[in-house]
């Protein structure tokens, strides 16, 4: 009964979405205020209906209703409750429902929170949002119904892929989707602006908080996924340039470019068509991600099941959404330039370089991701593109970006004094040179990229602090005055400082864990000892344990350093009988200096009983990645909490001469 309610709610939701796709637009054409306002009511109704469907599916998982195909193939009665709930979005169908739920919630957000947007823009935005909802609701109802029943019902479920039964991964999809789908609002705003044929600073001000919010969620989603890969897959890496990782990274890069470009549109009434294009492209890349993950187009370790019919359907949706919006862009964009002029050395120019570099970086990742497909289509040859490609293409672009990032925030609008700025940064430049030389001295013959990256990370950190110190005039005025200035600095400014510093911290982690990692893989018997990065590790043995829906074999490793006890690592290998597969549970000792990481595998072959494959890694500085990413997200949140963007905050009618209200 409950699943049928869900099914019915979905069908009704499609009908409501279709109404919302048309009625507000007709309202704008005929100046009918009631029709335009109807979008608010329908978006509430739409959200309620999709929430009912989602609740119904979650209920089926919670009570383990195995008459529903989706539950039977992705759950198991013995599974812990948390993972029963998380299994709701563990499958293709369920995750699609979550996707749509987030989509309509964002639509609801616009209709309820955005009070000060012109009625026509709002009506158009919500109509466009409804087009996307209708597309995905019909996709779900026609090709991937989450409520399909099975008869006779199996006695128990086939269990969710045990790799996915993990807290990090239970949270990863919701955050990732909040990011992916959050960009849909920006897309809808952009298409609405294109329909209207008008973009002004006010438009950019409405769009920016939504972009930032989506970006923060996407950052967290990517980091959660990366962290999960780090501790769960047992290989010790945190980024593999896998197609599925890349497709989540591309919207992030484009989104980063977008909210920087939107700053220029907001402050200087410039970069208009570029901002619009980025808004369209960012969501297009999110859609591309959805397509790649669900169509089996590329080889990847973690994609959903392959189904060409679904692939065709999503591709058709893509063609309509991306093709339609870009065609509209091509027609309308040439009419809407103009705005402030600026000198080649200025904040605008800095942000322009930022945008060009980020766009190139995105294109590089896109090319690397799709190149195997392009090559196979043209020559039939099959290859895969891995880290070497990205190290020579993507990484150098980002390093240049970091170099410019140090200078950018110090430049003033319209025309800046580059010489003065560089003079302020000369100490920072010296310091980063020293850091690079120190790295080179300690690790002579090591990777050149590592030396460069550490130097640039120090450069960025120093430049960010210099900018902040200059802003509060630290050392120039009495300390109390500096403190007062520090308190009065807009939150958005702190957002920039924290996020830029976060990137520098991340870079230190990236370099440490990829350039200076040490690894030992060996067959071990109880009593085997090994040495890694100054630690002595002794393999004590393996014991068998029983979990709720798995059998575990847990190894015990005693770690000492110079004879004194450090810690005991207990890596596990879990076998899930219902799902018929196993997972690696690594054991990690984390410190700021680096992670000691251990994982264990079954005996290599049958006549090797009693011997285990041990993999011990030492990854220096890896925790800096998680700290830095946290800072990136925190920066976004700080910027979002800025008074200027807060709902209901009184806004000045017209901005007087660029007063000290300088954002990043």
């Amino acid at each position, binding site marked *: 009964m409950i699943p049928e309610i869900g099914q019915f709610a979905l069908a009704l939701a499609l009908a409501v979405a279709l109404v919302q796709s048309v009625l507000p637009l007709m309202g704008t054409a005929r100046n009918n205020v009631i029709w335009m306002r109807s979008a608010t009511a329908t978006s509430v109704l739409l959200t309620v209906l999709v929430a009912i469907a989602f609740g119904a599916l979650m209920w089926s998982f919670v009570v383990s209703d195995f008459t529903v195909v989706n539950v039977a193939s992705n759950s198991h009665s013995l599974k812990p409750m948390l993972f029963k709930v998380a299994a709701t979005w563990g499958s293709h169908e369920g995750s699609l429902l979550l996707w749509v739920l987030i989509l309509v919630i964002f639509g609801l957000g616009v209709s309820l929170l955005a009070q000060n947007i012109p009625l026509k823009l709002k009506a158009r935005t919500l109509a466009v949002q409804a087009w996307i909802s209708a597309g995905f609701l019909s996709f779900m109802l026609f090709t991937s119904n989450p409520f399909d029943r099975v008869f006779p019902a199996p006695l128990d479920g086939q269990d969710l892929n045990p790799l996915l039964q993990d807290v990090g991964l239970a949270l990863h999809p919701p955050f990732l989707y909040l990011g992916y789908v959050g960009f849909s609002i920006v897309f809808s705003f952009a298409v609405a602006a294109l329909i209207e044929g008008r973009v002004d600073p006010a438009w950019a001000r409405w769009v920016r908080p939504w972009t930032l919010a989506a970006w923060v969620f996407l950052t967290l989603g990517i980091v959660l996924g990366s962290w999960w890969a780090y501790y769960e897959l047992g290989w010790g890496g945190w980024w593999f340039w896998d197609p599925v990782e890349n497709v989540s990274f591309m919207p992030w890069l484009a989104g980063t470019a977008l909210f920087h470009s939107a700053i220029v549109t907001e402050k200087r009434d410039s970069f208009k068509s570029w901002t619009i*294009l980025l808004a369209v492209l960012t969501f297009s890349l999110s859609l591309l991600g959805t397509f790649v993950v669900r169509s089996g187009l590329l080889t990847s370790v973690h994609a959903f099941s392959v189904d060409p019919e679904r692939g065709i359907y999503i*591709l058709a949706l893509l063609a309509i959404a991306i093709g339609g919006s870009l065609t509209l862009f*091509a027609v309308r964009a*040439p009419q809407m330039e103009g705005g402030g002029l600026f000198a080649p050395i200025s904040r605008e120019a800095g942000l322009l370089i930022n945008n060009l570099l980020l766009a190139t970086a995105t294109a590089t990742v896109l090319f690397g991701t*799709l190149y195997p497909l392009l090559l196979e289509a043209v020559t039939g040859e099959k290859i895969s593109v891995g880290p070497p490609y990205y190290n020579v293409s993507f990484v150098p672009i980002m390093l240049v970006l970091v170099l410019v990032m140090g200078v950018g925030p110090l430049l003033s609008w319209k025309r800046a004094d580059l010489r003065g700025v560089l003079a302020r940064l000369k100490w920072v430049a010296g310091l980063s040179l020293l850091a690079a030389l120190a790295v080179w001295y300690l690790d002579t013959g090591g990777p050149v990229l590592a030396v460069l990256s550490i130097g640039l990370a120090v450069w960025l950190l120093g430049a960010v602090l210099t900018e902040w110190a200059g802003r509060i005039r630290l050392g120039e005025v009495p300390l109390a005055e500096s403190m007062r200035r520090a308190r009065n600095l807009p939150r958005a400014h702190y957002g920039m400082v924290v996020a830029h510093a976060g990137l520098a911290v991340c870079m230190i982690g990236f370099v440490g864990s990829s350039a200076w990692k040490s690894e030992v893989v060996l067959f071990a018997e109880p009593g085997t000892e090994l040495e890694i990065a100054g630690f002595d590790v002794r393999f004590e043995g393996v014991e068998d344990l029983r979990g709720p829906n798995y059998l575990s074999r847990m190894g015990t490793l005693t770690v000492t350093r110079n004879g004194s006890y450090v810690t005991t690592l207990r890596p596990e290998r879990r076998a899930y009988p219902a799902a018929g597969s196993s997972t690696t549970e690594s054991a990690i000792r984390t410190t700021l200096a680096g992670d000691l990481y251990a994982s264990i595998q079954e005996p290599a072959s049958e006549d090797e009983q009693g011997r285990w494959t041990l993999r011990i890694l030492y990854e220096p500085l890896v925790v800096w990645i998680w700290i830095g990413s946290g800072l990136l997200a925190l920066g976004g949140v700080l910027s979002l909490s800025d008074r200027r963007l807060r709902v209901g905050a009184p806004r000045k009618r017209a901005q007087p001469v660029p007063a000290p209200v300088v954002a990043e």
Partner: protein
Amino acid sequence: MKRILAFLPIGIAVILGGFLLWGLNPDRDPNEIPSVLISQPVPAFDLPPVEGLDTPGLSSTDLAENDGSAPIVVNVFASWCVPCRAEHAVLTRMVREDGIRLMGINYKDKPQDARKWLDDLGNPYERIGSDLDGRAGIEWGISGVPETFVIDGAGTVVFRFVGPVLGDEAIGKLRTALEQARRNRAGETS
């Protein structure tokens, strides 16, 4: 100029979309590993028989100087390989019912283990080469055991299958390849 630039994004999107559409072709399997051997003559190798077994050994001449009566299936197996055990029954049935000619390469296996394995499960192989050091395996470019190849009457490799021949889909692929190998022969004689 500006107008043309504005059409650039949609142009790129359309081209990419074309590739994506091509990529959805249901016959395409991105995980399939192609073999360099396909449409090439069988590689040169000469393997002795498994020690203590009556079945004769296997060399490239046995495959190249095939009298053309039927295509040959070459199966790489080992007693220590569990999937081989599962696929063994399928291959035995195909020899019995379809009358295929099956040759084996016993890969990195101890002779006594291989003998015991064949005693337990039966020996459907016409010839078995013992590849103790894995040299022939390298010549054939195998990525693991089991692997199965189909050789047509002219001694050309027409098909490679990685993994155990189990289930309708795999057996179907093998049968299709055998059919193709027979046609190759017919085409040459006519």
